[in-house]
């Protein structure tokens, strides 16, 4: 622990400062602060999950531009699966299943067939838009609200417990767990070392006896589960409806967050929270009429922020070495 803190002293210091500031704000006006933090977290949940999809994909050497499509189809399948079957569980499973299937599709076309990864992802997005807008039926409702739970013990921590563990959706909890698990997995396990190896220098990994193709296939496909969860969260938890194009660029925001987070799960989660907090602040200022900007323009804030963040961060972080390049066994690169 001590060594970890020493290595990440800047991150830890920053996190501590942010935490103290958050508590001070909370002490000054607990109602406003709490509602803003909750808004920020609910905005950040799908972004965190999708950023993890991006991290797992790119750490294995596959660019996933198709997250947006995975998100949209999962939201669609989750909502209508639940609405038609009358069971939330069926909805969740079909959403996750769709994320998985699309992840598998992307993995297969890019890894097995070496289709250009960017084109494959964009095609996936367009297909997702086509399917969901054609089969969309207005006027459906969910059979019930998603269950919200409070974790005993953790939920009684002031602020942090109230935001993250009190009356929170299951998927939001999964997101927290996923961030931690994938972070530890990537940097502390054999799977993580191998994943980083095939994303950084696949031919060396291949020489060391790692099955690059299979590992990429499995990683990108399984990451689809997280995209599926994010989609389900979007249509069944944070709202209880599906609309055409409701993913609204979140898949791309997540990629920006991934870059901002330097391809590290914990930092990406922090970046997603930052995005969520800025959005929450903007909407709070809007409702209290402190600033008078048209809501349409406030709505573009996450996208403008993405451009700014990318312009600032892009030169400072380094992508995995082999990201975007198909691996061909025996082809030196």
């Amino acid at each position: 622990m001590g060594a970890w803190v020493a290595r990440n002293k800047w991150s830890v210091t920053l996190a501590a400062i942010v935490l103290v500031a958050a508590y001070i704000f909370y002490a000054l006006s607990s109602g406003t602060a709490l509602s803003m933090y909750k808004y920020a977290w609910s905005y950040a949940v799908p972004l965190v999950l999708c950023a993890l999809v991006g991290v797992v994909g790119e750490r294995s050497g596959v660019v996933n531009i198709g997250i947006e499509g995975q998100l949209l189809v999962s939201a669609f399948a989750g909502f209508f699966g639940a609405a038609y079957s009358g069971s939330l569980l069926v909805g969740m499973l079909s959403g996750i299943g769709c994320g998985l299937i699309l992840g598998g599709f992307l993995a297969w076309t890019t890894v097995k067939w070496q289709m250009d990864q960017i084109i494959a992802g964009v095609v996936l997005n367009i297909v997702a838009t086509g399917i969901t807008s054609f089969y969309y039926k207005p006027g459906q409702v969910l059979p019930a609200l998603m269950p919200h739970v409070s974790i005993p013990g953790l939920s009684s921590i002031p602020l942090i417990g109230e935001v993250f563990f009190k009356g929170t959706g299951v998927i939001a909890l999964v997101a927290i767990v996923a961030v931690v698990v994938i972070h530890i997995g990537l940097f502390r396990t054999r799977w993580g070392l191998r994943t980083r190896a095939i994303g950084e220098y696949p031919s060396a990994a291949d020489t060391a006896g790692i099955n690059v193709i299979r590992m990429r296939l499995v990683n990108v496909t399984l990451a689809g589960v997280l995209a599926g969860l994010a989609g389900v969260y979007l249509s069944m938890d944070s709202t209880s409806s599906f609309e055409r194009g409701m993913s609204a660029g979140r898949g791309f925001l997540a990629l920006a967050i991934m870059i901002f987070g330097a391809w590290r799960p914990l930092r990406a989660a922090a970046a997603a929270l930052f995005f969520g907090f800025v959005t929450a602040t903007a909407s709070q200022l809007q409702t209290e009429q402190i600033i008078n900007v048209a809501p349409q323009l406030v709505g573009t804030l996450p996208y403008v922020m993405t451009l700014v963040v990318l312009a600032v961060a892009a030169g400072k972080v380094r992508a995995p070495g082999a990201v975007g390049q198909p691996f061909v066994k025996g082809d030196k690169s």
Partner: protein
Amino acid sequence: MSHPSARPEREPAEPVTPPAPPDSPAPGGPGDGPGGLLAAIFRYQSVVVILVALLGAMAIGAALIRYQGVNPWYAYETIFKQALFTSDGLTRTLAKTTPLILTGLAVVLPLRVGLFNIGGQGQFLLGAIAAAWAAYQTSALGVLAIVVGVVVGILFGAMVGSIAAILKTWRGVHEVITTIMLNNIAAGIVWWLVTGPFQAPNAGGIPQTHEIGEAARIPTVAGIPLGFGVAVVLALVCAWMLKRTTLGFRFDTVGKNRHAAGYAGIPINRVILLAMVFAGGLAGLAGALEVHGVMHHFEPAIAGTLGFDGITIALLARSNPLWTIPAGFLVGILRTGAAGLQFATGIAPEIVDLLLAITLLLVSIPVLGRWIFRSRAHKVSAASTSWGS
């Protein structure tokens, strides 16, 4: 003219892509231009692949229509009849095709440089609203307001395109992310404008701008919208530019091998900027023509899915500017006929989105062959090397 069947006598013995040794089709050698044997193989293959993809998409679409309880044959017949053989059907189809060709070109040009411009939608929207505003402000100029509107539309589209190019060359931010973000930003801006500063007070609360003057409307001559002529001419110009000018050679060289282009002294950043400015300008022009020729005002729904159809068209056209004309026409037919289809059978017009998506899927999966080939030949495929770096 690069007609695909222009060289049937050079029909390849093996249409399957051979795993070419890495350095055999040397890029950039002027003698090994688009006329080479390998290019002929590609052209020959492309047409077959595209026809198969189209037929496959139609077949899958037929199954889906059948599943909706409608006779697919009747459905397709309705689409084509509505789009081509009704009194003003062909005119409407051509009017629809005009922006499609242009947004298709707006994807084709950057694709030749190795950039994937997903931002046609935003470039179109800002071009269109700028044109509508400028033309309304200058309606005293009569016909000249067309020129003003079109120029302003092109400039605004180009401006949006250049933002992505600058972020790309200056910071290495991938253009797919920036152009998507710019689409969303543009959508927010135009919504704000048409519900606020630019809203026509006499529109009864509908979010749209003032109607432009009568003289500023681009007419339809003998059933052909003049804008369509402009789009076709521009497709020809782009084809000529890519094939016969230094700039076109630079585009292709940068797209095929950025490192080689750099060694050859080609100003890569300037070429990238130019490609995106051209692309944005074309998409902005599409918006301006839509305002001047079809809608005569701006409303947010003006763009529909034009920007994204441009991607389908560009991939259908295999990034060949000339082929955007038939590809755009085909999409135009589907889009025009879909409205009639809903009237006749009750099938939602979004069936076209689905049909186009399936087509795109089938077309782009064999893009695989091409991209494998490219990436083997030049080691790094331009569309992906720039990711994140």
